[in-house]
């Protein structure tokens, strides 16, 4: 993602060489240049101070491990060469030299003590919470993340709670504290370029620090095995400049605007109320009687939650951040934008021309076929008939057209 500074490159490449040499003698030559470039989840390419702390510690540990490894292998190689059977007499039957043994026991112990000290101090630094500037809650469930911004003076001031999913928007340079839990099984929140992972355990609340140096989109993935679609439970952190972040916040709490009468989107609204609003909340949406529509996912899905779709098209991924809402051409404009432009590009949201209609349609047509979920009515006996994930809704193509038109206005 980011252009790395030359010094980091040199450091990390030599360390990688070391691991590669240790690990794969046979592929040594290939391993010299043997790493992916710009991997979105590269732990060796930190983009924030927390990940950087870990990386700096890593560098030392890998260097020591590398040196120890090289020494061991050098000694072994010499032994193989020097003492192979060339008909020499039977060696002395010595059972060892205790003094040498003790020295060779103390040396690794000393090395490890040397490593332990910085490691514990880094650990403590990474668990600090008193310098937090912004608090964001995340809640994991099968198989997506809900992100909500509680009312606070932090994050530049939030007066009305913001609920979104899949993508967490933050201000670059702000110390964010993620406070997380889970609604069903254990999930793990991991944005490799910003910090290590933290399991989100039902019934418990865990925190993890996040801070991005520069604006950009930082990819992450659930890393605690959480069932069928574990592989399809992803998330992103979108860091942007303060102005862009303020604009994003304002947009999130804008009042609901109903589609104009007679448009396809207006038909979509009634389809949405009939088909989708049992689980998916759209804030401000009213039914025919003018009553607020409150989604009751607790009565309809096992995890008791479904993504809030009020501002769906301000995000650019859907279904647990597994698929893009942006078509391939438009995706690059946001994901590969220069650091300074990321915020603006992201705030544009998803327009009709940029929509990845193919995959969104596939999803609406038959969600469990696209992303494996437990929705087969025959296997729901144990969950009181509630599916785990979005079920097959048997929507007609017309209804899908209407819904897409409606959803395109949700930004």
């Amino acid at each position, binding site marked *: 993602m980011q252009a790395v500074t030359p010094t980091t490159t040199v450091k990390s490449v030599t360390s990688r060489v070391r691991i590669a040499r240790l690990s794969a003698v046979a592929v040594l030559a290939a391993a010299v240049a043997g790493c992916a470039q710009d991997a979105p*989840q590269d732990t060796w390419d930190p983009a924030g101070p927390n990940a950087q702390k870990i990386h700096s510690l890593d560098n030392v540990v890998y260097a020591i491990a590398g040196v120890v490894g090289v020494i061991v292998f050098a000694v072994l190689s010499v032994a193989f060469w020097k003492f192979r059977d060339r008909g020499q007499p039977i060696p002395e039957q010595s059972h060892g030299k205790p003094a040498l043994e003790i020295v060779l026991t103390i040396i690794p112990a000393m090395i490890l003590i040397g490593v332990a000290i910085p490691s514990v101090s880094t650990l403590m630094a990474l668990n600090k919470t008193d310098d937090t500037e912004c608090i964001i809650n995340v809640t994991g469930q099968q198989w997506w993340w809900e992100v909500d911004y509680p009312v606070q003076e932090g994050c530049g001031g939030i007066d009305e709670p913001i609920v979104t999913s899949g993508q967490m928007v933050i201000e670059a340079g702000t110390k964010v504290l993620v406070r997380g839990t889970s609604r069903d099984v254990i999930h793990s929140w991991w944005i490799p370029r910003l910090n290590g992972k933290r399991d989100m355990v039902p019934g418990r609340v865990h925190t993890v620090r996040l801070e991005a140096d520069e604006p950009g989109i930082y990819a992450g993935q659930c890393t605690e095995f959480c069932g069928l679609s574990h592989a399809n439970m992803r998330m992103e952190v979108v860091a942007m400049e303060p102005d862009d972040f303020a604009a994003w916040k304002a947009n999130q709490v804008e009042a609901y605007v109903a589609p104009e009468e007679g448009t396809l989107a207006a038909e979509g609204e009634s389809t949405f109320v009939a088909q989708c609003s049992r689980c998916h909340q759209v804030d401000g949406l009213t039914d025919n009687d003018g009553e607020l529509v409150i989604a009751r996912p607790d009565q309809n899905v096992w995890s008791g939650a479904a993504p809030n779709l009020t501002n769906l098209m301000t995000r650019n991924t859907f279904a647990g951040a597994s698929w893009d809402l942006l078509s391939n051409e438009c995706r690059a404009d946001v994901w590969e934008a220069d650091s300074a432009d990321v915020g603006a590009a992201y705030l544009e949201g998803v327009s009709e021309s940029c929509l990845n209609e193919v995959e969104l349609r596939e999803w609406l047509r038959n969600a469990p076929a696209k992303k494996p979920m437990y929705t087969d009515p025959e296997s729901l006996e144990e969950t009181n008939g509630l599916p785990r994930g979005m079920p097959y809704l048997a929507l007609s193509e017309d209804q899908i057209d209407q819904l897409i038109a409606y959803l395109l206005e949700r930004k």
Partner: protein
Amino acid sequence: MAIIERPTESPATEAPAPSASTSYGYLRRPVETKGWRSWAFTVDHKKIGIMYGAVALFFFIIGGLEAGLIRLQLAGPDGTILSADKYNQMFTMHATTMVFLFVMPMAAAFANYFIPLQIGARDVAFPRLNALSLWTFVFGGIFINTSWILGGGADGGWFMYAPNSSVPFSPSNGIDFWTLGLLITGIASLVGAINLIVTVLNMRAPGMTMMKMPIFTWMGFVTQMLLLFAMPVITVALFLLMFQRSFGATFFSVEAGADPLLWQHLFWIFGHPEVYIIVLPAFGIVSEVLPVFSKKPLFGYPFVVFSGAAIGFVGFGVWAHHMFASGLGPVSVAVFSVATMAIAVPTGVKIINWTLTMWGGKLKFTTAMLFAVGLIVEFTIGGLSGVTHAIAPSDTQQTDTYYIVAHFHYVIFGGGVVGLFSGMYYWWPKIFGKMLSETLGKWNFWLMMIGMNLTFGPMHIIGLQGQPRRMYVWTEYRAGEGFFNLGFWNLVATIGTFVLAIGVFFFLINIWVTHRPGSKTPPAPADPWDARSLEWITSSPPKEYNFARTPVVSDLDEFFHRKYEDVGEGDQHEYVQHMTGEEVIQNEEDNADLNIHLPAPSYWPMVLAFSLPVLAYGVIYSTLLILAGAAIATMAMFGWALEPADAPQSDYDPTDDGGETSKELANV
């Protein structure tokens, strides 16, 4: 019933006809010495060891096939060979099969076969319990794998974290099979552990103090102690899970106020010692092989022994390093992080001692030696990457990624399986009386080494560059760019798997070539490697009674010192062979003991073991089956208690006290 050696004063001269009062009817013990019955009902630790090994090898192939499917699925992005559900079952069962049904029983095979031989005993302390261990393991293993045809295997990962293992999240019966199956194989491990611990403590040959015990026996002993203390923990955890799933308990239900981390603690208090249960036997094997092919005693024998014991002890205090990302709080994490680094010290001591054993030696690179050296190299890599995630902050980046997969395969495959292969090549002539082909063996070794490094080496990169474990697909969007992107390394890993599989296939070919009908492989010499320890002071394969004469031990490397004499003066040592191995063995046979008493075979261990899967099916499907299983178990225990102490074909020597009988050694 334990074997008790009787003094030799009263050789049976005439065998009185069995009277109605001394034999108890139809429940007499089986006597077959040929055919399948001689294997099915045997209590001979050697036959049991061989069967353990054969069944473990079978499960190794099953587990390997599962691994192959996993790697095929992940060879490219968005793999379609397996569905998400099947993939989850596959990686769960791959781990379960490899850990519980291959490595542990294979280590048990070696322990069963060689611990009695290495301590100069005629069998283990409780021969029928030994048979029970074997059959319980076999039926347990089959039971777990029948889940494939009964609705699918377990799909919660071998770590089976709660609450994902509860019924709402895994409605099929796979996890029930897994839970009950592991409870059954757990019985096998626990019974075996007690048996071998008693054997080692009580049945060593005269003169063999604990510090003269061969190192493999020592490591086996430590392993059994670990099993003894670790198995009860997992048994408790599995019982909780069984009650949660089958009987509506709420141990892991968060809505009822439970804390799901309870399972993690229980699992890893077992799970971490389990790592050492897997590698220590292999460490024992290479600690036997290296001295033999270096013509030097093991460097720092007491250090290796005590570091093994230390690993076993400290291994119980580091479980939470599997939970650094679980949210334990920084203080707990710091403590366990430091404890984990501490355990690297005794492990490092072993590597240093192996290296120094070779230093100054006379190295002969046979296949067994190559595998032993392979273990040192691969395990060093695994150990060093292990240190990198003892560092808790680094671990939060590495855990649950492919980096961990790489690490523990270097430890378990590189440190465990490679060591077991070394043992196979080293002890094959001892067990079967024929040498495996060295040429095919070297093919086997090199293909396995290249394959393993190609498979697991790239996983270090894949993991550090952000690919998590246990994903049934990976996506190109997260694979990065450049030629060496994660897609490339995933493909390399898949290719490596097949190289590795071919390497293992060469092992099977080697067995076939050596043992096929009409094979021209000559019988192995009695002492093919110029070995050092007690198991070689007998014929190959050993006679049913192991030793013609119970050996009297005066040195750590007893066999070596019987063959070689130090003719040097003062500090100058010069070793001259004054006897060949064959002569030493001949000498023993010429002075054979009289009246060797051996335990008789029995039907009941197998019947009792069979009742367990019946009970387990009952828990899953029907209470009636539970009753049937309980009935079989009761009958088997009854039969076990009732059957006579000896087989009827024994030469009975009824004595006044009505107790022991003795049997004359046939060939003396």
